[in-house]
């Protein structure tokens, strides 16, 4: 079943009279419950695509349907509701609130999510049950990223959007994080969309979307994706 459907989506940035296309006439359909990797070099438009899917940005033209809802015409408040209910974000730089403990960082989504999951459970899922009262600054990078994943999952979203989630981690920790994300797709049925320029990560994906110069170059399903252990990091 399709969860994401983009039709003729363009995103243009204007600087005076100069126009720059970050995305140009993009059509894309993605299936639910899959581990999807969007691959491309810097400046290809992959982060723009992710931001549009996450409701952080709106397209200049075209329509974006996520979970059957057209998000391209939503107001600021409606987009906030959409982010609160449908998508979770994981960033390269974790973006945790430094003044809240691990548990509080995850539990804060209860304030806005309509159907949140147990924060304790989510932290247990990501293997941080013993660190719940620590502040982010007391954790390693990998641990902070796992808190960020737990926070994204605690909203019980249908889609998890990950922008270079292993970019700031060493390869060993990166593998742990990727395994965790894969497990979320396989066991919890979440759609995981990972944006990266790392070709190796693409080997784990059910679907690989290649982006270049603001266009989708290819969108291929992989019948036998590798496990994290099988990939040569």
């Amino acid at each position, binding site marked *: 079943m399709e969860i994401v459907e983009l039709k003729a989506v363009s995103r243009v940035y204007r600087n005076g009279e100069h126009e720059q296309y970050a995305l140009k006439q993009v059509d894309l359909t993605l299936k639910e419950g899959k581990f999807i990797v969007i691959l491309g070099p810097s400046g290809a438009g992959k*982060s723009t695509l992710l931001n549009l899917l996450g409701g952080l940005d709106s397209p200049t033209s075209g329509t974006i349907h996520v979970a059957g809802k057209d998000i391209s015409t939503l107001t600021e408040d409606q987009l906030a509701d959409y982010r609160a209910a449908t998508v979770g974000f994981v960033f390269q730089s974790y973006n945790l609130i430094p003044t809240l403990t691990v548990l509080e960082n995850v539990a804060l989504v209860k304030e*806005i999510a309509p159907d949140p999951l147990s924060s304790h459970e989510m932290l247990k899922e990501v293997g941080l049950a013993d660190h719940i009262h620590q502040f982010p600054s007391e954790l390693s990078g990998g641990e902070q990223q796992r808190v960020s994943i737990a926070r994204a999952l605690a909203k019980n979203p249908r889609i998890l959007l990950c922008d270079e989630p292993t970019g700031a981690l060493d390869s060993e920790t990166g593998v742990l994080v990727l395994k965790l994300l894969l497990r979320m797709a396989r066991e919890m049925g979440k759609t995981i969309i990972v944006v990266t320029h790392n070709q190796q990560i693409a080997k784990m994906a059910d679907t690989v979307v290649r982006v270049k110069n603001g266009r989708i170059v290819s969108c291929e399903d992989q019948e036998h994706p590798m496990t994290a252990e099988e990939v040569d990091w």
Partner: protein
Amino acid sequence: MLRKKRLRTLLKYKAQFISMIIMIALGVGVFVGFNMEWYSLERDTGELLEATGFADYRIYSEKGFTAQDLEKILAVDGVKEGTRFLSVNTTVQGDTNVLALTVSENIQVSGVYLMDGEPYDPESLDGIWLSDQYAEKNGIHVGDSLGLTYKIMQVRGTVKGLIKAGEYMICLPDETQMMPDYNSYGFAYISPAMLKKAILFEFYPQINVISDLPKADFVAAAERALGKTTLILGRDENVSWAESRGEIEEGQTMGSILPVLFLAIAVLTMVTTMHRVTASEKTQIGTLKALGFRNRRIILHYTSYALMIGLMGIALGIGVGYLLGWYILSPGGAMATYIDLPAWKLYVPGFCWAVLAAILLFVTGIGFLSVREMLAGTAADALRPYTPKKMRHLRVEETKAFKALGFGTKWNLRDCLRHKSRSFMTLFGVLGCTILLVGGLGMKDTLDAFVTQFYDVAIHYRNRINLDGENVTRSDAEALAEAYEGDWSAMGSVQMGEKPVSLEIYHIQRDKVRFLDTDMKVTPLGDEGAYICGRIARDQGLKTGDSLTFSPYDSEDSYTVPVAGVLSSLTESIVMTDACADAAGIPYTINTVYTDAEEIPSDSRILNAQSKKAIMDSFDTFMELMNVMVALLVIAAVVLGVVVLYNLGVMSYTERYREMATLKVVGFKDRKIGRLLITQNLWLTVVGIALGIPAGIGVLRYLLTALASEYELKLVIGPVTYAVSVLLTFGVSLLVGLMIARKNRHIDMVAALKTEE
């Protein structure tokens, strides 16, 4: 190239830089303004007193002094100059106005300062030199004719000149009136020749003397020379000198209190803001260092911001100071309604320039230290973004109550603790705002209550009739009081220890005069003893039940009476009933009648009458000045609150930008994030107000003691003042919070979250 960067950085941090400049300008303005006020007043009044030969001592005798008496005084070692002097309140013919008719035999002492017309002529037989202020208010010009009446004496002459005089620098008819009212009261000088022509003999009840001798020495020498004890008053006991000195001392006190508050806030704002600005510039500082710029060059570059801010703030502050000085000291200024000077020139005391140089150095030093902190270590260290202190667990976090708090509360609470200096500054800004509001509005409440109690409640008559005491017998005075259905009193001066104080003996049957206790409540006078004012009680260590001793001037007798109570009084006085005075055998002469009668026909027994309305009218000017002062304080409080809170709000917003972007990405709406931001401001506001109210009361209490102890003011703060102070401070905080919260809409989630943490 760095020059271009400097300009762009200034634009980038314009809110911060502008707020630092405003705070320094406010602090410097208040500092320069108030110090300029007292210093200019000291010099301007000094010039008039010097030019008119203001006397150091005044020797009184009801019987008058002969030329030989003056010779004896002039022969005293240490006496430089002297004059026989007369000053009596006369009624202006065809009018109810009163002019203090003045004659000084030697015009070099207690003389005049010509503003217009002919110079003073000691031989003139028809010349009147009139107060220019009185002339202006009453439409009198040089060349006009003027007639004056004192008892049976009639003086008529031509206005030859318009003048000012040191003796009447503060021109008040008596101590009940606080502000001059030139519409109804002024002064005029005539020559000794004209006086002699009018009364056919010489009569001078006063000798005014210029002398450097200390008072005790002068009194001893003068009494020895004259061969009797007599009332001798020094400069301190003269209203023109004492009140103008009081104003100067008030200015000195204000110049050392208010600027401290403003400058402390300015410096703290500077420390916090410069640190934040350099912290957010840290990677740029690191980049310059990595590129090969020397530390000294980078330090100079960033220190130059602080120097520029300091220079601009100080320059603007000096302007504000001059404006403040001009508002108080100019021909149309606030002080000119009180003190009558020929010229109002503004001078800045020398030490102010030194203090301003120190402020500039200090402010620049703050910039220097801030950038040096960011430059510490290697180029690689400097390149790393500034990281605030790591969070630490607090004991309170273990409590159930803390755990039960919502996420927003925890977030704000920890943020306050993490950014202590910012939180402290916010608190300090709110505190300053509340202190100014409570202090300013409380001052108005206190004076309103004072005026109401002293003048609406205590003065319960319509007219006060001054009798020609020497020529009115007791039975005549009593008959007059009876005819006017009034009460009477006998006012005089007595010596208590070395000090002259008023002795006021009252016969109150018709409730025309009331007396206030130290709580400003009406209290009846008993016959069992004397009542003293708060200052005598304090200075002499007297309390109810003690005894006090005093002696009348021109007499060797002394009297001891028990202290029956302590009163609030405008004058330093001993008050008693006539029954008490009679029982103690104290002699007195009835010289005042208090009545509700509206018309007081002229009568040989009556010198003049003074209406309560005239006294109250003089307060209008005083209260108007007070209102303007309070309005200025309220404006200062609001400016201070807005500038400090906005600056810190922007800082808080910038520092939490990334956190707010995260919340926005997670799904928080702008309104909710805005509420979180405003909540923190409001918490600090609540704490600031809770501390500010008692601090405001404390400051006001101190100011009342330091500035106006002679009025024995009782601190009064009405509920409206509390309500306005709280609501206005809250309003300022909320307004600034909303202004900052509006910025949420423009948070660029993508850009914010991409940046390196």
